[in-house]
């Protein structure tokens, strides 16, 4: 698989909610080679603290070699990233890892929680190019509150999708967890793609297994390189052997992951 290290110029840096940002960079080589579910490693500062690159799933790819990342300011790395302004240069390595298998079974359900929504936009766009009419796909998105969720719901609606939303505080859509929306749509879909907090993905994986619907999950871990060299991004497979998120993933069949120890 080809990957590149690219100096990328920041084109836009949009604030979607108090702590949520969308970064658009001109990164033609990585954009051209990428597939939904893959990720990039980005150096968020030129100093040695924070030292390591941070992994971000590819949120979207648009014409002219534009790569979009969606992130929430959580720690040292994302606080540095937040300071990038249009015209400044950043440094990316990608595309990395194995993305979603999306040539398989239609129609699909795309289920995202919080920043886990990021890779699903690129996936939703790519699904438009395969056979099912887009109305058949189910998009279920959840977040804490409307302020954080509404701008993301909007992105999917602009692609022509109908979105079901869920918020923890009931300020948009269903009052509760996005996983609670799945039960109803599960009989009508043949694949579920999910990305979000670990407990959410574990719950969805259980539901899909019970209904015998294939489920793909996009996992997140700490990693130092993203290239399969540091061996730091370990998860458990069901037989308690290890898998590395950067190489075997970040997208896994839900049955390849041990959800509870």
């Amino acid at each position, binding site marked *: 698989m*080809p*990957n*590149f*290290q690219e100096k990328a110029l920041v084109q836009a840096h949009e604030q979607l909610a108090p702590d949520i940002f969308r970064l658009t960079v001109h990164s033609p080589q990585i954009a051209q080679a990428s597939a939904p579910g893959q990720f990039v490693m980005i*150096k968020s500062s030129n100093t*040695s*603290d*924070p*030292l*390591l*690159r941070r992994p971000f799933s590819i949120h979207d790819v648009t014409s002219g070699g534009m790569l979009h990342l969606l992130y929430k300011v959580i720690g*040292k790395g994302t606080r540095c990233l937040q300071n990038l302004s249009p015209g400044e240069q950043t440094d990316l*390595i990608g595309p990395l890892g194995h993305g979603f298998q999306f040539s398989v079974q239609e129609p699909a359900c795309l289920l995202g929680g919080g920043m886990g929504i990021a890779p699903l936009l690129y996936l939703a766009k790519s699904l438009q190019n395969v056979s099912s009419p887009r109305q058949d796909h189910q998009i279920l998105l959840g977040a804490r509150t409307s302020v954080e969720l509404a701008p993301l719901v909007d992105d999917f609606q602009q692609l022509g999708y109908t979105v079901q939303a869920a918020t923890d505080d009931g300020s948009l859509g269903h009052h509760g967890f996005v996983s609670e929306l799945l039960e109803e749509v599960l009989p009508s879909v043949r694949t579920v793609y999910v990305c979000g907090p670990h407990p959410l993905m574990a719950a969805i994986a259980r539901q899909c297994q019970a209904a015998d619907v294939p489920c793909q999950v996009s996992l997140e*871990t*700490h*990693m*130092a*390189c993203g*290239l*399969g*060299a*540091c*061996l*730091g*991004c*370990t*998860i*458990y497979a069901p037989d308690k*052997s*290890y898998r590395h998120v950067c190489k075997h993933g970040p997208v896994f069949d839900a049955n390849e992951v041990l959800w509870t120890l």
Partner: protein
Amino acid sequence: MDAVKTIPKADLQVNIGGLPLRNPVMTASGTFGYGREFENLVNLHRLGGIVVKGISIQPRPGNPPPRIVETSSGMLNAIGLENVGIERFLTEKVPYLKTLRTKVVVNILGDSLDEYAYLAEKLSGHEGIHALEVNISCPNVKKGGVAFGVDPEMAKAVTAAVKTATDLPVMIKLSPNVTDIASMAQAVEQGGADSVSLINTLIGMGIDTSSRRPKLANVIGGLSGPAIKPVALRMVWQVAQAVSIPIVGIGGIETAEDAIEFLLAGATAIQVGTANFYDPQATEKIITGLHQYLYEQKEICVRSIIGTIRLGSST
């Protein structure tokens, strides 16, 4: 870049105890996989050498997660020596490594003298394997689990066992978690080591205050990155005064200036470790920077600056 092209190229060749390198810049074990992981990002043929991920007789699964955590200007890791084992290394990794026009050093690790000797013998006589680096920071199972690398007699014994088992140049990688690094270097020199590389990681830990749990599942792990460079440099300097075999400096090197500090302190070559993770181009930038430095210093050969730190009054 244009300015760099116009300067005359210096002679960067060095010899690490029978291992000739085209330049003194290598990659450190455990930070560069088996080389191929970086083939799209680094011109591997340009490197002085590649030290591959440590190999044991049996494949090792490694430690439970979480295995890594970032620290101020560094990182802690407790990977647990995960590797494919010698059989898969020879059949799956060596065919690619031997296509590279660079020197390949295989890092080995074991639980007993017999295991080290077995690995050394098994890795000898293969096209594409040019030297061994011996990780002596592993516990000696037969001696109650004390690391070979913290006891001079055990370190000497493991060196002798490996030397007896192979004709390849043998580099012993020293642990910094000792009181007197110079006496460890002297012990392995007496054991017949062709060179020493130092330092391995410094043992550290971190605690998540909200959960009160250790940040690494293994509780303790190895600290690496720019944070450890001053310690590494001090140890290289001390070892340089204690032994006559070549020294390979390791520890937080990310720039040419870092590398040059180690050469001035007495290292004949250097290894880039953690920097490969966040700046895969670090090795190539260091090679370019060495030419630039030697030109500015009016030197034509990198060997003429080794150990030339100026001590005493500046007047």
